[in-house]
């Protein structure tokens, strides 16, 4: 299949693995920021081909994982209301809140529906003027443009029955928080290729300079990932700390100007809590005041719901790369995909779920 096979070619991957081995003279620790990359690395078994002295740490780039528990609780509260059609991307439905998940709300009679695009939720609102349609707007920079477009469209149509429950998060402030932590051991980053496709690479330049780390924009297929790792290792070996792009077929330095403009028209940056990590300054997006009418937390007055994270879960240490999932005492015993104690076990792209799925005994 075109655009897939050439990036999953075993020969090309092995060549890149050999190049990494010969380029590397001492141990290095890299972080892949995005859960999609973690998933690919474990699914294809790329880590098995890398030299032992290269450590990959799995970063917090999984939107399902970092969505705070209290936001799930707010979603559950809204979705249970009779007048509401609650719409969401599929993988948010299974995430347990402190009492139940959206799938349970659906089983109890709530009108919870999977949509493939937030614009489908706007269409639902047009078609159901007597119902309140709410879209669960989570995700990184990648989903922000489509969510912004949905709000813009609802605004243009003058829809009074469409709102979004918004918890967008941004990658560069998270990298800043990870690198700024006192015991950080990350020496190089693989940035998320699709995030840079939208937002460009300019925001990473100051980070590379401030912390003196190489940041390589990297895709998601095996050849993409191995190329990103190779470029990062080469930069570390040379002592260089700049932003490089290993995903040029999709990402450019300016990103997608139309998408960026739309996101900035609808949203503004805000402090945001990340599940398992805590509040990271200016790391989220919220609706601008002129679009506050589309804010579901305001319309349904559920912003007061606050929830504590369970104590057993070491999600924070996992998401910051201090520990591997298999180093958690609950992993695979008290904590499984059926009974997750924390978010990284819930989402298919969470680091704990990826370890559970691909790395137990084989």
């Amino acid at each position: 299949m075109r655009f897939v096979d050439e990036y999953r070619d075993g020969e090309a991957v092995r060549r890149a693995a050999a190049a990494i081995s010969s380029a590397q003279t001492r141990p290095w620790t890299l972080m892949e920021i995005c859960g999609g990359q973690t998933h690919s690395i474990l699914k294809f078994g790329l880590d098995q081909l890398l030299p032992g002295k290269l450590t990959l740490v799995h970063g917090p780039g999984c939107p399902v994982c970092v969505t705070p528990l209290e936001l799930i609780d707010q979603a559950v509260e809204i979705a249970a209301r009779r007048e509401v059609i609650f719409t969401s991307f599929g993988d948010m439905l299974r995430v347990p809140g402190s009492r139940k998940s959206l799938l349970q709300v659906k089983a109890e009679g709530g009108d919870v529906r999977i949509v493939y695009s937030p614009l489908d939720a706007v269409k639902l609102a047009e078609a159901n003027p007597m119902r309140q349609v709410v879209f669960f707007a989570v995700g990184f920079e990648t989903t922000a443009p489509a969510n912004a477009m949905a709000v813009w469209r609802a605004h243009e149509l003058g829809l009074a029955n469409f709102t979004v429950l918004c918890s967008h998060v941004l990658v560069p402030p998270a990298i800043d928080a990870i690198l700024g932590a006192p015991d950080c051991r990350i020496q190089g980053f693989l940035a998320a290729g699709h995030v840079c496709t939208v937002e460009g690479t300019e925001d990473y330049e100051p980070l590379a300079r401030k912390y003196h780390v190489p940041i390589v924009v990297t895709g998601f297929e095996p050849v993409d990932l191995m190329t990103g790792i190779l470029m990062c290792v080469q930069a570390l070996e040379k002592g260089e700390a700049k932003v490089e792009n290993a995903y040029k077929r999709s990402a450019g330095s300016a990103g997608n100007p139309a998408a960026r403009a739309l996101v900035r028209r609808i949203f503004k940056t805000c402090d945001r809590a990340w599940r398992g990590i805590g509040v990271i300054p200016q790391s989220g997006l919220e609706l601008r005041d002129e679009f506050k009418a589309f804010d579901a937390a305001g319309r349904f007055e559920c912003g007061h719901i606050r929830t504590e994270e369970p104590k057993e879960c070491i999600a924070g240490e996992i998401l910051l790369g201090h520990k591997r999932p298999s180093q958690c005492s609950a992993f695979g015993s008290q904590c499984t995909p059926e009974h997750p104690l924390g978010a990284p076990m819930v989402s298919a792209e969470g680091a704990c779920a990826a370890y559970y799925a691909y790395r137990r005994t084989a």
Partner: protein
Amino acid sequence: MTDPKSGPTLVDPSQWSCPAPVAPVDTIQVAHGGGGRMSQKLTESVFLPAFRNPALEALHDGAILSLPPGRVAFSTDSYVIHPIFFPGGDIGSLAVHGTVNDLAMCGARPLHLSAGFIIEEGLPIADLKRIVASMARAASEAGVTVVTGDTKVVDRGKGDQIFINTAGIGVVPEGIEIAPTRARPDDVVLVSGEIAVHGIAILSVRQGLQFETEMVSDSASLHDLVGAALEVAGAHLHVLRDPTRGGVASALNEIAASAGVSIELEERSIPVNEAVQGACELLGFDPLYVANEGKCLAIVAPSRAKAVLEAWRAHPLGRDAAIIGQVREEPRGRLVLHTRIGARRIVDMLSGEQLPRIC
């Protein structure tokens, strides 16, 4: 009092009419399941003409059958698919194929089916006729007869158009012993064709997803394909399974667990067509977990693997058949995948449904 001068208004009886009180019934009503005259009429006008056979026409409470010698295989399954009509089939053909295939996977020759219909009030009778005709066609192609049945009607909103249960019996020939526990180390794993087609076809119509090529379900009766494998492998054919819900990964995990063996798959050998692969990439699905309705997995002694492969490839339903893996001793109960880049990983059971991802 009537004014004597004008007298009572006269009516002309020749102009009287008696309008038909009820329009011809063209949708299912609760009374169709009530056991009375409307039920009888539905049986006579829809079910009997389609399924016609002596056992059914006796209209007894049950069918009385004579079976050929051998052990009897008996299976049941319920069908609740949405939408009820989809590219490549409908709930009727699926209800026949599914149970015929469950029997075939026991190594049985399928013989007779029962059919239970739970219909939601308001289903157009034309739709019911179409579904029943499709069942009759599928049954005749599979060489089975529908010998007994039942119809219930539920209030509108209490069902989803129509649910069908079919149960079936078949006879297992002497010397054939098919069971998941019989997978043993060194056995070879085959699949009869491209995987994940049905699940993606249903999802694409359900969600209105458009792809360059139309996705058509692979729903089909597999008894003939099983017959072809039995002919060349006989008792050396150890396990058969149709990987429906949960896909190839779940079916092979179950077999590995019940036989206490490990199964190793070679990723590059697993046939997946481009359209299905593209849809899976888009949705974040793994084709190994997507449902099939016309594919068969076989676990065969190594000496007969090539013969089964050739027999399948010569069959219209098995043109894309492939050897996809082998049974090993360790790690017991696990399905292991050799990835296309040369690494190894486990393939686990899914904990729930696959859900489309965010990004």
